[in-house]
């Protein structure tokens, strides 16, 4: 046996336990969850073989159809829309605040480590603690609404996480159309630009995917939804989410700050000096040198924050007590369907949808980093 093949044998032996465990406990269970989501399984059936034989049925995409169209499942749609708005705002707040803090800390100020610790500290708390504390702070009649009275102004009246106000309203039947417009703006136009400017193969592939998705959205989903919805159903951006964004942003901004600070420290002083010598303004140094160099960090931050916010549960549960629809999230709906309604099949369907949402964020990242590796070698 040659040395190379012996090494390979050892490598395979060392890796195989974790590969097997991963295959069973991650992918196997994803598979069984996906299968469960296509049935009508209830907890009673799980508990009793007899009931299971008598009542378990394969219902295909029935649970998913019900989430999208049934008047009884408007709660799922509320959570789904909420989670999209929340993710967008939460990432934005964390990136902007984190970058700002990192730039300020990077000015070689005195006591930097103290500030760094202070800003990073909220991350050490559990989301449950954050939720409870901010619920008290946001209490309509006793919390931060009273702050203006300290300086003689009238107390604030915004109801924060219990607010019922909604802006950017749309009817649910128009959702596929809105998504397809967003796909055009976010995916189609940029990839066209890449195709024209750089003749990029990948951009062509992405463009084809986007056009396929839009065809489905406009020709199948939109008319299907129109005929299936019994009543018009208004959704929109619930202002109550601002409270959740504030609380979650407070907790996670320090983390993005730490990431950016590491990135800033990695940019050599020579580079900045060179730019300044070439007559670049201080603002120009950031715009032309520092921000472009921080781009990979921004991408990592978006991935990490995105998967936190898409799966969020504990924060909203402890802030709203569970049944507060203005800040409802799919994770909450999954928990209630599974453990309060005793309908794990529906809970599994929500879990699969959440997995797909996270996959939309993570797979392009994995793809680009896997593709990037061989080139680096």
């Amino acid at each position, binding site marked *: 046996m040659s040395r190379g093949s012996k090494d390979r044998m050892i490598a395979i032996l060392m890796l195989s336990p974790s590969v097997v465990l991963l295959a069973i406990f991650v992918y196997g269970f994803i598979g069984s969850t996906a299968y469960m989501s296509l049935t009508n399984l*209830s*907890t*009673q059936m*799980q*508990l*009793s073989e*007899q*009931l299971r034989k008598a009542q378990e049925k394969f219902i295909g995409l029935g649970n998913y159809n019900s989430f999208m169209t049934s*008047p*009884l499942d*408007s*709660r799922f749609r509320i959570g789904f829309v909420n989670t999209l708005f929340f993710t967008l705002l939460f990432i934005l707040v964390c990136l902007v605040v984190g970058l700002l803090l990192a730039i300020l800390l990077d000015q070689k100020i005195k006591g930097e480590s103290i500030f760094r610790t202070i800003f990073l500290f909220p991350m050490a708390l559990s989301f449950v603690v954050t939720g409870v504390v901010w*619920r008290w702070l*946001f*209490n*309509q*009649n006793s919390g931060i609404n009273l702050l203006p009275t300290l300086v003689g102004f009238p107390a604030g009246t915004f*109801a924060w*996480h*219990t607010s*019922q106000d909604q802006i950017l309203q749309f009817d649910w039947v128009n959702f596929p159309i809105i998504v397809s417009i967003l796909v055009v703006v976010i995916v189609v136009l940029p990839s066209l630009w890449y195709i024209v400017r750089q003749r990029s193969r990948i951009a062509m592939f992405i463009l084809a995917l986007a056009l396929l998705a839009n065809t489905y959205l406009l020709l199948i989903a939109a008319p299907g939804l129109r005929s299936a919805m019994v*009543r018009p159903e208004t959704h929109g951006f619930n202002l109550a989410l601002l409270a959740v964004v504030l609380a979650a942003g407070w907790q996670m901004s320090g983390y993005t700050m730490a990431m950016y600070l590491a990135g800033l420290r990695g940019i050599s002083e020579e580079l900045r000096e060179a730019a300044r010598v070439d007559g670049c303004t201080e603002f120009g140094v950031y715009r032309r040198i520092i921000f472009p160099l921080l781009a990979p960090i921004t991408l990592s931050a978006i991935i990490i924050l995105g998967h936190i916010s898409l799966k969020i549960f504990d924060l909203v549960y402890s802030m*709203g*007590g*569970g*049944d*507060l*629809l*203005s800040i409802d999230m799919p994770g909450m709906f999954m*928990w*209630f*369907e*599974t*453990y*309060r*309604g*005793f*309908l794990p099949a529906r809970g599994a369907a929500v879990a699969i949808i959440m997995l797909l949402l996270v996959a939309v964020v993570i797979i392009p990242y994995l793809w680009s980093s896997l593709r990037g590796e061989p080139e680096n070698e």
Partner: protein
Amino acid sequence: MLNRRNWIYLALMVVLLLGVTGVFAQDAPSGELEVFSWWTGGGEALGLEAMIARFSELYPDVTVVNAAVAGGSGVNARAVLTTRMLGGDPPDTFQVHAGEELNAVWVAAGLMQPLNDIYEANGWLEQYPQGLLDLITDEEGNIYVVPVNIHRSNVLWYNPAKLEEWGVTVPTTWDEFIATCATLAEAGVPAMAIGENWTQVHLWESVALGVLGADGYNGLWDGTTSWTSPEVISTFETLGAVMDCANEDMNSLSWQDASQRVINGEAAFNIMGDWAAGYFIADLGLEPNVDFGWAASPGTSGNFIFLSDTFGLPVGSPNPTAVNAWLSFIGSAEAQDIFNPLKGSLPANTTADIGNADLYNAYFQSAYTDWTSNSIVGSLAHGVVAAPAFSNAFAGLIASFQGDGDAQSIAANAALLAIQTGMAQ
């Protein structure tokens, strides 16, 4: 690799384990008894601990493990319980609400053991009210749990001194309530204090009983009252009108916060189960009939919405002998007189010492009179009349209704839900 010393350790541990888990078990109850509940705070935790203390005196060989899981009306505890039952690791005995919460899940899955022997041995068939026994008995006559208490859900709480100050009386119908609301609005006081979502479902069941009457209310659960009938739609309209008379910050209040607003004079009335009496007396140190007053919720005089906490013996319970002793104990008048005065509920066993004013205060004396003379219906918010699949989704419907106030659409949705969950055709 195990060396010789480790082998000896291992052997010792195996022997010890076998000993502890009762391979050499005797007939007298011994070993560990795990009691699973969601009683973690206030009077209910005290009541449970007092029962356990007395039980330990009677059965010194049994070590009771109090496995209580905290969280809003038992949702978290039921999640833990479900996971344990699915994993084949049932607690020895667990708390469950009498009615559909018990029947539609645990009995339907065949996981509860009949307790008729215990009932007969203790003579309980004569000591428990027949209506209550019917709810915990299946078609073959098997009884599955032992109730420890009775709570009333449809109680209207108020502060007598404050009502006098505002010049209003206790409304006996919802029309009167709405009129009272207008009077109170002039004084700038919300007529009703409401808390988070489940207290709104709780409020609706009182409204529905007041509007529909006992027969109409019961018909909702057996399919004889149509959810889309004008009467049922008007229950939601009334709920909307009552919410308009209430505090705006309802979603951020717990039930304690809401009840306390009445005591503080920040709202005129509150509809809450009679655990509120326990809270007023034990936690706030108030005097019944002086610091707080009560009445049946509007339109429900002569009717009693009840719920009951019970314990049973699950299939696969590790220590059934000890569970038998525990169940025989908690069903007795002695145990119920220990537990209920602390928890703030009525004894389910009719031979309990209810006339003893040292144990049961003025509120419970009057509630007990109602319990034995009123027509009894079950609670929706507390798992008696509807399966979890219905009550879970209904909570979501009430949450939507609180946002849009559309009585027609919630009635239509509830009708659809009743069909989907098999409660109506």
